[in-house]
C-alpha cells in the first residue's frame, strides 16, 4: 500500500472533508503545489482555486476553495478556507448564472468565486 497523508479540509463554519489521501494539489499565491506523503513541513497562502485530492481508494475529490491556507506537518495536511465547497455540492447552473450576473455588474470578487466553482465542476 502506498504511503498516505491525512487531509482535513475545513471551512470557517464546518468541516468539509477529511480522510486519507496520496496526493493533494492546491493553488498557492506562488503557483500550484502538489503535496505527497513525507513532504517537508509547509505553510502557504492559498489562492481561490480548485483543490484536488487523490484519495487512497483512488478516487478524486475536487473542492472549490476561496482564499485560505495550506499547512502540512507530521503527515497531516490542513486546508483552511473561509469558504470551501466540494464539487459535488456545487450547483453548476447556479454558478453560471452567478458568473453572468457578476460579469454584468462587473463585480470582480463574485466573478472570481463563480469562476472557481465552475472550474471545480469541470475538473470533476
Amino acid at each position, binding site marked *: 500500500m502506498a504511503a498516505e497523508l491525512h487531509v482535513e479540509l475545513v471551512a*470557517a*463554519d464546518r468541516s468539509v472533508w477529511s480522510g486519507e489521501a496520496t496526493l493533494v494539489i492546491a493553488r*498557492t499565491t*506562488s503557483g500550484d503545489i502538489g503535496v505527497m506523503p513525507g513532504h517537508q*513541513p509547509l*505553510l*502557504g497562502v492559498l489562492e481561490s482555486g480548485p483543490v484536488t485530492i487523490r484519495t487512497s481508494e483512488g478516487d478524486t475529490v475536487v473542492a472549490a476553495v476561496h482564499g485560505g*491556507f495550506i*499547512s502540512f506537518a507530521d503527515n497531516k495536511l490542513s486546508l483552511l478556507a*473561509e469558504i470551501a465547497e466540494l464539487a459535488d455540492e456545487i450547483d453548476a447552473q447556479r454558478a453560471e448564472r452567478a458568473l453572468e450576473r457578476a460579469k454584468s455588474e462587473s463585480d470582480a470578487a463574485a466573478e472570481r468565486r463563480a469562476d472557481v466553482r465552475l472550474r471545480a465542476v469541470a475538473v470533476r
Partner: protein
Amino acid sequence: MGAQLRVYKRRIKSVTATKKITKAMEMIAASRIVKAQRQVAASTPYATELTRAVTAVATGSTTNHALTTEAENPTRAAILLITSDRGLAGGYSSNAIKAAEELTERLRGEGKEVDAYIVGRKGVAYYGFRERKVTESWTGFTDNPTYADAKAVAAPLIAAIEKDTAEGGVDELHIVFTEFISMLTQTPVQSRLLPLSLEKAAEESGTKGEILPLFDFEPSAEDVLDALLPRYVESRIYNALLQAAASKHAATRRAMKSATDNAGELIKSLSRLANAARQAEITQEISEIVGGASALADATAGSDK
C-alpha cells in the same frame, strides 16, 4: 358571582395566558441553544487549525508584525463589546456591559484612551442613552451570526490596529463577550485579542509544549503572517459571536423558565384566594337562608299564639 371572585378569576386568566407565552419562549430558546452549540462545535476545527498555524509561523520565524508586536507605550485601545439585540434574557446584556465598563475603567487607569465598538442593539442603546461615543456598531445578527458578519465586524478593527496611533489607530484590541460554559453557567469574559500573545494562543490550541516543525513558508513568512493574522482575528470574533449567541439563548431560556415558574406560583395562590372567596360567598348565602328561614319560623310561631 361575587365581585371579589370575579376579580380573582380574571387575574388567573391573564396570568395563565402570560404563562403560556413564557413557556413557548422557553422552549424556543432551548431548541436554539442546541443549534448554537452545534455551530460553535462546527467552527472549532477551523479555529484550532488556524491558531496552530499562527503559533507555528510566529514561533518559527523572527518576523515582527503589526499584529503581534506590543507598542512601547500604548495610548489607545479598542474594546469590542458583544451584547444581544433583544432583551428578555435576564441579566445577559447588562452583565456583558458591566464587564466592558470595568475594562474601560482599568484601561483608562493605565492612561489609555478607549474606543468602543459595539455589537447588539442593547449595548448601542446603553451607550446612546449615556451619550457616549461609539466608534462603530453592528446590529441585527446576534441571534444567528454568520462568518460574513464576523468578517464585517473584524474589518474596521484590523484597519484600526494597522493604522498608526497618531492617525487615530489603536494599539490594543480587547473583546468582551459572554462565554458559554454550560447550560447553566455563562460568564462575561474580557480578553485581549491583539497584540497577540503567542503563549496564550498556544494554550488555546492545545499545542503548548508541543515542538512545532520547521515550516517551509510559501511565499514567505511575512506574507503568510500578513494573510494569517486577519483571518485569525476574524475567526476569534466569529467564535465569540457564536458563544455569545449560545449564551443569550441559554439566558433567555433561564429567564423564561423562572417567569413560567413564577406564573405557576401566582396561579396557585390566586386559585386558593378564589376558592376561599367562593367558599365565603357560599357560607354567607347559607347563613342568609338559614337566618331568613328562622326569622320566618319565628314570625309564624308568633302569629299562631
